[in-house]
């Protein structure tokens, strides 16, 4: 089997708003850092895979604007309209064909450009039976949260445990926009947006850009891509077939990854969590913990010094939620965390959006 490596990563820190740069300038900064990190030039890259959603970007066919600012001019270029972790998977698959040696994966979020984000998300629902009810997507997420809490035996307060943990973890992360030395009580005191969700349980959209260089050249490799998987869950646009309170995609995606590796235990998990319960729902579905999720959470098992740290980077709640770039945000943080030498392997996961039952997983490992 052909091994795939992360050769370099680059990002610009998450911020509520980058008013001084457009998305091209943001991506250029991130790409320059990735090339520097990898020690290669754009001449050595064979193609670019990006993640993008035209509705988020307010521009049709944005992938035609991708290549120039990331060194991809006159090269193979493709775009996936999924979360950016899926773009990583597409990059890996291109490398596995043997026709590419090095692929650059990019994604950005310019959430500050979107004036009515909740309406954009509303337009992802069926125009006949869902949209006329004009539910805010926090409310759709809250239905998931309620169902999950009911199924799992967790309590609403556990959501505050997740949020407080991630905001505190983010204090160590210079790329985080919403780090805070906060307490569970403080999160509990934030306003209710849609029961059981409080303002403090929601990851705030942010501006962000990231670039990751993948390669088949071992000499360039910093971290190995051990396995990857993607699955769509049970989902219909009218939501009638959605399995509430469950991340159906998570286990299915992990099973695909398990076919590529014998690794069954990782040192930490990075998972995009647009909402606090998204983290718990996915962890539950992964089945990586034998004990109950809420007990482990309450015992501090998912803390940075716990036996399975979850979102030691601060996650999306601590860093900011960069829309479809969340998966690349997770991957960059994971690579950086692995390179500290503290951990040797991790599971990276990212759902395809706030209320979408679909998502990707990637397993990363550093050679001992």
């Amino acid at each position, binding site marked *: 089997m052909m091994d795939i490596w992360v050769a370099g990563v680059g990002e610009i820190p998450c911020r509520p708003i*980058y*008013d*001084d*740069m*457009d*998305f*091209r*300038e943001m991506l*250029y900064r991130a790409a*320059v850092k990735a*090339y520097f990190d990898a020690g290669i*030039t*754009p001449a050595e890259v064979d193609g670019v895979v990006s993640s993008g959603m035209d*509705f988020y970007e*307010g521009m049709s066919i944005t992938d035609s604007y991708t*290549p*120039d*600012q990331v*060194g991809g*001019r006159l090269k193979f270029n493709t775009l996936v309209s999924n979360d950016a972790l899926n773009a990583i998977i597409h990059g890996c698959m291109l490398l596995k064909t043997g026709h590419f040696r090095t692929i650059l994966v990019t994604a950005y979020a*310019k959430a*500050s*450009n*979107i*004036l*009515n984000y909740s*309406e*954009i998300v509303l*337009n992802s629902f069926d*125009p*006949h039976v869902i*949209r*006329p009810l*004009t539910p805010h997507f926090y409310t759709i997420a809250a239905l998931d949260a309620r169902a999950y809490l009911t199924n799992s035996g967790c309590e609403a307060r556990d959501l505050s445990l997740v949020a407080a943990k991630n905001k505190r973890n983010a204090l160590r992360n210079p790329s985080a926009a919403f780090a805070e030395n906060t307490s569970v009580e403080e999160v509990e005191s934030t306003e209710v947006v849609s029961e059981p969700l409080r303002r403090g349980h929601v990851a705030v959209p942010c501006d962000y850009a990231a670039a990751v260089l993948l390669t088949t050249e071992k000499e360039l490799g910093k971290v190995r891509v051990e396995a990857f998987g993607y699955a769509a869950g049970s989902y219909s646009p009218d939501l009638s077939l959605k399995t509430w309170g469950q991340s159906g995609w998570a286990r299915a995606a992990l099973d695909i990854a398990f076919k590529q590796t014998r690794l069954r235990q990782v040192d930490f998990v990075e998972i995009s969590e647009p909402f606090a319960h998204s983290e718990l729902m996915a962890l539950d579905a992964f089945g990586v913990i034998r004990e109950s999720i809420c007990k482990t959470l309450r015992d501090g098992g998912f803390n940075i010094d716990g036996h399975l740290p979850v979102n030691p980077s601060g996650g999306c709640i601590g860093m900011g939620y960069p829309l479809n770039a969340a998966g690349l945000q997770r991957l960059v943080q994971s690579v950086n965390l692995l390179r500290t030498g503290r951990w040797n392997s991790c599971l990276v996961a990212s759902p395809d959006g706030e209320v979408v039952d679909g998502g990707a997983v990637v397993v990363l490992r550093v050679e001992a």
Partner: protein
Amino acid sequence: MTRATPSRFSPNYLQQLPEDLARYIQRHGLDKEFGRLESWASSMEKRYMEIGEWQIDNLVLTYWHIACMYRHTAGAAFSRFLKGLKNGKILGTRCEGCGRVLIPPRTFCEWCFKDIDTWVEHPGAGIISTYSLSYIGTDPRVRFEKPVIVAVVWFDGTVKKANSSRTVLHAAGILHKVQGVGPEEVHVGMRVKPVWRKPEERVGSILDIEYFAPLESDV
């Protein structure tokens, strides 16, 4: 932000629709929505949605007005360019690596993959490198009686050709409209210059240049 785009709804649009649907749209005033640019203020006040039922035989349509609103950050390069236009100046950047002048400007060079921070001002004269006489607008079925001349203008002194051939590798050029010349006279290579709006009318938009017109020597 009010006078950025001159596009307006054209009644001809309805001609392409089935008669019943066109009638339905007109009866509910939905035709007034089409293609019309409103100020941010009025578009924020717009009703959140409108649902109507319209039936022909067994067909039911749900009308949904997608109200997506964005504010596009111009970024470092375009911001300075647009501010320049407001002051009646055409600003660009020059890459010290390959020597290219970029108008509109970029703060990075996609050839050299390097930062660019050298700014230049251009007087604005150039040649038409390609053009088209356009009889159609973005509204379906709209036809202009007199064609609009859309052209790419290459600014003087910015054209880089390959040493061994006449192939143009790069030119700083922008897409704009050409006026002051008939459809019969316009041609590739015609020398043109920008015609500016009055200073008090300029807002920092590509439309601060009203159009390009032939240089007197070329008429």
